[in-house]
C-alpha cells in the first residue's frame, strides 16, 4: 500500500479521506496527491446522509478515469470536468477494495485504468477520477469528476505519452482515522 503505511493511529474524532495517484508509462513513473472538488465532497456527504447501506456494485460503467491536456488551470472546488479531456476510455480497468481492521483501521479503494500502446497520445497535464454522483439536496445521477490530479497544482510534471508502451493510472483512495 501507499500512504496508509505512513499513517499512525492518532485520534478517532475525525476521519480523513485522501487520494494518491500513480502513473506509469515506460520510464515515466509519477506519484502525486489528488485534489478533491465539490462534487466529490457532496456525493460522499449524500451517501452518509442517506443513511442507507450501499450494495457493492463494481460495474465498470459506474466510474472511469480520464486523461487531459490542460497544464495551466489549477483545480478549484467548483470544477466538474477536466479542462481539456482526451475523450478516449482505457482498454482495461478494475477496482479493488481493502479493509484493515484493528487500531490502524483504514479503507483503501484502488481504481486502475490501462491504455494499451498507441490507443492514446499527447502531453498529459491533468487526470480526473469520475464516479457516479449523488447530491445532498440535488440529484445528479451521472458520472462526474470527484477528484483531479493536475500539473497546474504542481502535483506532477507534464509528460508526452510514449505511444509504444502502455499507460496505467492507479488511483488509490484511502480513508483513515486522522
Amino acid at each position, binding site marked *: 500500500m501507499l500512504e496508509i503505511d505512513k499513517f499512525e493511529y492518532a485520534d478517532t474524532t*475525525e476521519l480523513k479521506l485522501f487520494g494518491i495517484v500513480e502513473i506509469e508509462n515506460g520510464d515515466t*513513473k509519477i506519484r502525486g496527491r489528488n485534489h478533491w472538488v465539490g462534487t466529490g465532497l457532496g456525493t460522499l456527504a449524500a451517501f452518509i446522509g442517506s443513511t442507507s447501506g450501499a450494495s457493492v456494485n463494481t460495474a465498470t460503467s459506474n466510474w472511469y478515469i480520464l486523461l487531459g491536456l490542460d497544464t495551466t488551470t489549477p483545480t478549484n472546488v467548483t470544477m466538474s470536468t477536466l479542462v481539456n479531456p482526451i475523450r478516449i476510455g482505457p482498454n482495461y480497468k478494475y477496482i479493488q477494495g481493502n479493509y484493515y481492521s484493528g487500531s490502524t483501521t483504514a479503507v483503501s479503494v484502488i481504481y486502475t485504468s490501462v491504455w494499451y500502446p498507441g490507443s492514446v497520445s499527447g502531453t498529459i497535464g491533468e487526470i480526473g477520477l469520475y464516479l457516479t454522483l449523488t447530491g445532498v439536496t440535488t440529484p445528479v445521477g451521472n458520472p462526474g469528476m470527484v477528484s483531479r490530479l493536475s500539473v497546474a497544482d504542481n502535483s506532477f510534471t507534464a509528460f508526452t505519452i510514449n505511444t509504444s508502451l502502455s499507460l496505467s493510472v492507479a488511483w488509490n483512495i484511502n480513508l483513515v482515522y486522522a
Partner: protein
Amino acid sequence: MEEYNIEKASVGDFIGIRGTVKIENGEYIAIGRNHWVSQGLQTIGSYLISGTNITAYNAQYGGSYITVGQVMDTATQQWNIYLGSDTSTTTTVSMTSLVSPIGSSPGTAPNTNSFSGTYSATSSTPVVLTFNATWNAGTVSGTLGEVGLYLYISTYNLGGSGYFLGLASRLSAADGSFTAFTINTAAALTVTWTVNLVYA
C-alpha cells in the same frame, strides 16, 4: 522520469469528516466531539468501493432495492441515536454498540428524530449533516454517560457482507468528551449530532 510528490500536501488534498454532538436536558447543555468506530469507516468505504452506482437497501420499502442516488433518503428507519449509562469505557474502533444502553438494546428510541443536510461547494464548511433526536420528558432516566449514532452500515467487500443498523460513532464521558449527568426526567432530552465534511 520518476516523480514522488505525495509529501507536498495542500488544502484540498484531504476531506476531513468530523462530528460534534450537543446534548440538552433542561439547564444541562454539553457539546463534545464524537469518536468514529470501524463500522462507520467501513460504511463510508463501501460507498467508494461501489464505484459508485449506489443501490441502497431500504427497509422502509419492505426489503426492495431503491436507488438512493436519485433522492436524499431521510427515512428515520435508516438511522437513530441511542443513549447509554456507561461512564468508564473509552471508545475503541472495534466497538459495535453502546456499552450499557438505556432501555433494551440498542436502547430506547427517541420520540422524534429528524435529519437535514446542506451543501455549498464554495463554503469553508461545505457540508453539514445534522441528525437530531428528542426524548420526551420522563421517557428515559438514569445516568447519561454515552451516546451513539447508529447508521445503516454496509461492510460488503470491506470485511463483511451485511447491511444492518449499527454504531458508527460514539460520544462518551469516558473519553472526556462530556461530563456524565443524571437525566432530568422533568425535561425533554435532545441530542443534535452534526457531521461536517471539510476540505483539509
